[in-house]
């Protein structure tokens, strides 16, 4: 018998169909991975099982738990529990973690305060936290620890089904692996079934036996993991599999001139050292990858290179000359940057045309407004958009399209160096692939050098000629891509690579 049987589930918000009659089953103690990109409806499906959809949703279809139709409000928390993506905001900031875990026990199992506290300490140990942390507040814990607390809350009443909605997406790569291992161990020990929701096809193999691929509210394909991953029948599934960054960049031939040289670059904020003496060089037409987890200082280093942050120490040389001695406008013309967040990097009140012509106007390129608009239109075409975009506003575009506009803006001045600060990290996998291709072709056409910053090892492997690994403000290892990925020398590098494997 299956733990959960969903038949013809339909969710509508007003006239918009978020989930269009899907059906799937989760066998007892089994794991189903629900995979999809943003907007596919996977989270909404999960929320509808536990009845947590917003008030304006209409739900149709049948959901059976252990063979019976259920009322979600009766089973949630106890028999079906849920773990969410963002542990920091999902925990109540003003109550201790012990209180929040104990609350579930007292509510559903009727335990007294003392009994609940004892049980809570046991649970903490089971999820890999120290018992003494029972009175800690969420903000005192790291992201990984917070997620362990969420998991403890979810398993406290021994649910038959655990729904995990992107439980590791907000965590660093090394932590991700630990959490996944924890969940797997708990599942085995407590004989739970699991619905695992993710956008990352790479995780599916490690976590589930069955997989269902969702797109735009429909299930495009489902079946045993090994089958679906090896021989997908649906075109969308195929495309998803193909979009994963694969392979390694072709090693570059010969040497080119060094454009940028950094020696001992450092940045400190009050008493916190974000970057501690970074040295590297960038040659024409080459890509230097910069890998690190959150808080490693890689974004700060990118900003230092672009001189958007003033360095506290070290020097930066541009074509052999001190970058600080160059007139600022001159420097900005040669060095540009594309940021991570497509929703924040374009001024929402500027039309696309205004955003693109601004740099041209400031640097006195083009003889007049009309000519500048022509140049802008050309840039748009170059990045794969049409000239009609000139008159539109950012909110009319998708995330991927906005990144294209951001790249067009960066190209406007014809820079020699382009810093890509997690430029594709916020995009769906299929869009990512398109943009990486765009970046590659632009690099070839304009012989630009890239500093490619990312936390995603697979992407960096496919894009970079040389790679630097950063941790706590320091560059712990650097070398050619082939060398680094094949024979990592620093223990941290090795940890990173094994976690992502």
């Amino acid at each position, binding site marked *: 018998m299956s733990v959960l049987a969903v038949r013809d589930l339909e969710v509508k918000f007003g006239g918009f169909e978020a989930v269009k009659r899907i059906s799937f089953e989760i066998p007892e103690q089994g794991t189903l991975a629900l995979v999809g990109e943003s907007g596919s409806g996977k989270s909404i499906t999960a929320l509808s099982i536990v009845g947590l959809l917003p008030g304006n949703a209409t739900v149709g279809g049948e959901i059976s738990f252990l063979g019976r139709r259920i009322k979600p409000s009766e089973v949630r928390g106890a028999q079906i529990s849920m773990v969410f993506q963002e542990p920091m905001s999902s925990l109540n900031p003003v109550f201790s973690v012990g209180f929040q875990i104990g609350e579930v026990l007292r509510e559903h199992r009727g335990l007294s305060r003392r009994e609940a506290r004892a049980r809570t300490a046991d649970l903490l140990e089971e999820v890999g936290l120290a018992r003494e942390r029972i009175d800690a507040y969420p903000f005192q814990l790291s992201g990984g620890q917070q997620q362990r607390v969420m998991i403890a809350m979810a398993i406290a009443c021994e649910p038959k089904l655990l729904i995990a909605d992107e439980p590791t997406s907000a965590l660093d790569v090394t932590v991700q692996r630990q959490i996944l291992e924890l969940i797997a161990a708990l599942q085995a020990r407590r004989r739970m079934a699991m619905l695992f929701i993710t956008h990352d096809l790479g995780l599916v193999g490690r976590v589930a036996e069955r997989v269902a691929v969702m797109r735009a509210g429909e299930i495009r394909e489902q079946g045993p993991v090994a089958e679906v991953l090896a021989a997908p029948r649906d075109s969308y599934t195929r495309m998803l599999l193909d979009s994963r960054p694969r392979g390694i960049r072709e090693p570059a031939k010969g040497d080119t001139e060094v454009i940028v040289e950094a020696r001992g670059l450092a940045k400190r904020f009050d008493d916190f050292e974000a970057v501690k003496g970074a040295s590297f060089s960038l040659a024409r037409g080459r890509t230097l990858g910069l890998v690190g987890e959150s808080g490693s200082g890689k974004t700060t280093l990118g900003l230092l290179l672009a001189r958007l942050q003033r360095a506290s120490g070290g020097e930066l040389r541009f074509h052999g000359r001190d970058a600080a001695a160059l007139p*600022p*406008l001159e420097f900005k013309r040669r060095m540009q*940057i594309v940021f991570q967040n497509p929703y924040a*990097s374009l*001024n*929402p009140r500027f039309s696309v045309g205004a955003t693109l012509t*601004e740099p041209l106007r*400031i640097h006195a390129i083009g003889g007049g407004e009309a000519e500048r608009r022509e140049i802008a239109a050309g840039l748009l075409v170059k990045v794969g958009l049409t000239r009609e975009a000139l008159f539109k506003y950012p909110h009319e575009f998708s995330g991927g399209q906005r990144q294209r506009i951001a790249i067009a*803006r960066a190209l406007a001045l014809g820079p020699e160096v382009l810093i890509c600060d997690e430029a594709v990290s916020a995009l769906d996998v299929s869009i990512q692939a398109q943009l990486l291709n765009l970046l590659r072709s632009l690099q070839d056409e304009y012989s630009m050098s890239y500093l490619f910053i990312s936390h995603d090892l697979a992407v960096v492997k496919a894009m970079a000629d040389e790679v630097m690994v950063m941790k706590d403000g320091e560059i712990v290892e650097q070398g050619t891509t082939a060398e680094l990925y094949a024979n990592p020398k620093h223990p941290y590098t090795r940890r990173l690579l094994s976690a992502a494997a």
Partner: protein
Amino acid sequence: MGSLAVVVLLLAVMVLSAAGVIARNWSEEVGVSYAPPKWFASTTQDTQTQEEQAVRKLDDYGIPDPIGPELAEINARLTGGGGPQARASTLPLGGDKWGRDVLRKVLKGTEVSLFVGITAACLTALLGTLFGALAGYFGGWVDDAFNWIYSVFTSIPYLLLVLAIAAVLGHKGIATVILILGFTGWTGIFRLVRAEYLKHKVREYVLAADAVGASDMRRMFVHILPNVSHVVLVQLSLHVVLFIKSEVILSFLGFGVGVETVSWGSMLAEAPSELILGMWWQIAAATAAMALAVTAFSLFTDAVRDALDPRLQ
């Protein structure tokens, strides 16, 4: 959308009154003292005293003037028989102690109160936005300086601050009131605009503007300001309400508009002595007008705030 209609209507009244199209002769004493409203008088049993009311003039204690009729006769003879026009015994919304038409006073008062409220709000929004932008964007000692001024101003409760300044400046009329309100009310807007600038200064679109070479001024006023304008607009509307209410209090205490003009506050100032005598129509008219205006502006503010909420975009 109803609130928008009312706001537009009130603004129309303000403009028409300022242009002299309506309520021009608000200070003319066209009615008898304390003439009751037309519709009210006809429903009371007091009809038989209407003629007597036409002749009687009440003083502050409700005592009729003993030589009233004789004075009226003398006046008539002095002014060559034309005499004071026959005074109306009732007026549309009633009359005040001197027989001035309450309806006209309310319309004129609308003009004055709205003008003061809106002008002062614009002044305060200008100051608050400018200071907030400079403090939030530049930080450092600029921020420290503005924060110092801010903390000085906010450590004194608003009404006390306004009254203290009014006490020193004395009774000087509309311009003074506007300046007082404008120069004391900027603190709320300052705090909000400063917080917005702190937030936006590190946003990627501003960094991107820096990367392409935009100057500080350009980033502050061409890039960030349009993204902050929704906050300012809502605050502007809120301050119109605040200043209308403050002007009423100031005028009531005699520190607002002078005697040569009328506002809702000066109308309310006449209320205490009127109420004792049971004459309620002036306070009712002023309160109704004020309630209508403030409610309309408040609902309008809420609608504007919801419409411009970036989270809903």
